[in-house]
C-alpha cells in the first residue's frame, strides 16, 4: 500500500502539487458512481406498490419518455376482461394494474410501441392507438363496434 501511495505521488507530478495546482491523483478519484434508487430504507420495496414507494430523483420512475410517442394507446375499461396480457408484455412498465385489475396507462413512461394493442384478446380490442393530440373522451366515443365472425 505504501508503494502504491508513492507511485501515486509520482503519477500526479509532485512538483505541480508543490506549485499549488490542485490536481487529483488516480487513487483519489471516486471509483464509478452510485445512484440510490430510493430515499431512506428500501428493504421492503418489493411489498410496496409503485405509488407507495419513496423514489429518489435518480430513479427513472421520476423521468418521462412521453415525448418519444407519436401515437398513444387508449384504454376502454368497458371492454376489458382483465386478462393482464398487456401487463406482462409491456416493455415500459406502463400498464397500471392493481389487485388483478387493469386500471389504465402510465402516459409518462409509455413509448407508444403498440405491443399492448397487439396482444389484447378482446373483441373489439380494449386498447387502441390514437393520435397523441386526441382527447381521451373523443377517442372513447369513436370506439369500434364488436366485429361479427365472417361466415
Amino acid at each position, binding site marked *: 500500500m505504501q508503494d502504491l501511495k508513492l507511485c501515486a505521488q509520482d503519477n500526479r507530478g509532485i512538483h505541480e502539487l508543490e506549485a499549488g495546482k490542485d490536481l487529483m491523483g488516480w487513487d483519489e478519484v471516486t471509483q464509478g458512481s452510485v445512484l440510490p434508487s430510493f430515499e431512506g430504507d428500501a428493504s421492503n*420495496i*418489493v411489498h*410496496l406498490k*409503485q405509488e407507495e414507494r419513496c423514489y429518489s430523483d435518480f*430513479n*427513472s420512475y421520476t423521468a418521462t419518455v412521453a415525448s418519444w410517442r407519436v401515437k398513444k394507446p387508449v384504454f376502454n375499461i368497458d371492454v376489458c376482461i382483465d386478462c393482464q396480457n398487456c401487463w406482462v408484455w409491456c*416493455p415500459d412498465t406502463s400498464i397500471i394494474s392493481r389487485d388483478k385489475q387493469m386500471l389504465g396507462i402510465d402516459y409518462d413512461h409509455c413509448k407508444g410501441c403498440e*405491443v399492448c394493442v397487439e396482444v389484447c384478446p378482446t373483441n373489439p380490442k380494449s386498447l387502441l392507438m390514437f393520435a397523441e393530440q386526441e382527447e381521451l373522451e373523443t377517442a372513447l366515443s369513436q370506439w369500434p363496434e364488436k366485429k361479427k365472425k365472417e361466415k
Partner: protein
Amino acid sequence: MAITSVKNLKEFSTANDRFEGAHTLCPGCAHSMIVRELMNCTDDNLVVTTNTGCLEVSTAVYPFTSWDTSWMHIGFENAASAAGGAEAMYKARKKKGTLKDNDAPVKFVAFGGDGSTFDIGFQWLSGAFERGHDFTYICLDNENYANTGGQRSSATPIGATTSTAQAGTHSYGKKEKKKDIVAIMAAHGAPYVAQLAPNKWKSMAKGFQKALETEGPCFINTVSPCCTEWRFDPKDTINITDLATDSLMFPIYEIIDGHELNILYRPKNVIPVEEYLAAQGRYKHLFKPEYRHVIDQIQKDVDEYWEMLQRREEARV
C-alpha cells in the same frame, strides 16, 4: 424462498414491478419484457450485474437508474465474474454473521446480451460456471451487437444481413452457423440450463424461478427480438417471437444436470421457417431466386436440431 405465484396471469400481475419505465430501450424491445418478468417472478432481494450492451446503456443513463434492486455494471464482459464475486463475498459475510440481515434471502443474477455472452464475455462466463458460484446468468439473445449498430456476433444465424456481414450481389449475409450456446453451457455440468422465450410467459417465469431456486450456476438463453436490427414493426415483437418458437428456430427446452433434457413447448402446428424469415427485413434478400438454397439449408438445420432434441429427451443422455 419467497416466490410470486405464476399459476395464472392474474395472480402473477399482483407482483410489484421492480424495473421502472423511462429507460431508453427502443419502443417494443423484448429486453425489458424479459427483465421485468425475472424481477416480478420472485420476492427475494436481487443482486443484478449487467454486461455492457443495450440493456446496460439504456437502464443506467446518468443521472437515472431504472433498477429498484442492487445493480452493478463494471465492464463489457464481466457480469458473470462480478456476480460470482458478489456471491462469494455474501457467503463469507453470512458465515461471519456481519450482514445487516443475515436471514434475508438474496439471489444473484447476471444479464448479458448475446455479444457479451457468446463472444466477448465467454471466458468470464465459463470461468464462473467452472467455479460453481450460486447465480443465474441470463443471455438476452438478439443475435447481433444491437447497441453498436448491428454488427455480426457468433449468435447471428446463417443468412442474416448485419452491418459487418452485409447481403448483396456477392453475399447472402452471414455464412457461418449460430453457436449452440445452450449445449455448451450444459456441457459445463451446470445444474440448470434452458432456452426460453418471452411469448410463453408461463414457461419463462417457471424457468426463471427454477433457476433462482437451484443452487449452483444456472444459464438461461432467452430470445429477444430486436425491432431495430431484425427490421420489423415494434408492435410485432410478440408475434415474431411466436413465429420463432412455432417454426422451431428457437425451441424451448431445459437441460437439468447436463443430461436430462425436457422440451417445454411443442407447437401444435409447426410452421415452415420461411414464414419466420419473411416477417423480418434482415432476411429479405434470401427470397431472391439465387439465395433460395439458404432457406432450404436453414429449414434442414432446424429439422435436424429438433429431431436431435426429441431423441435426447427420450434417451435421457
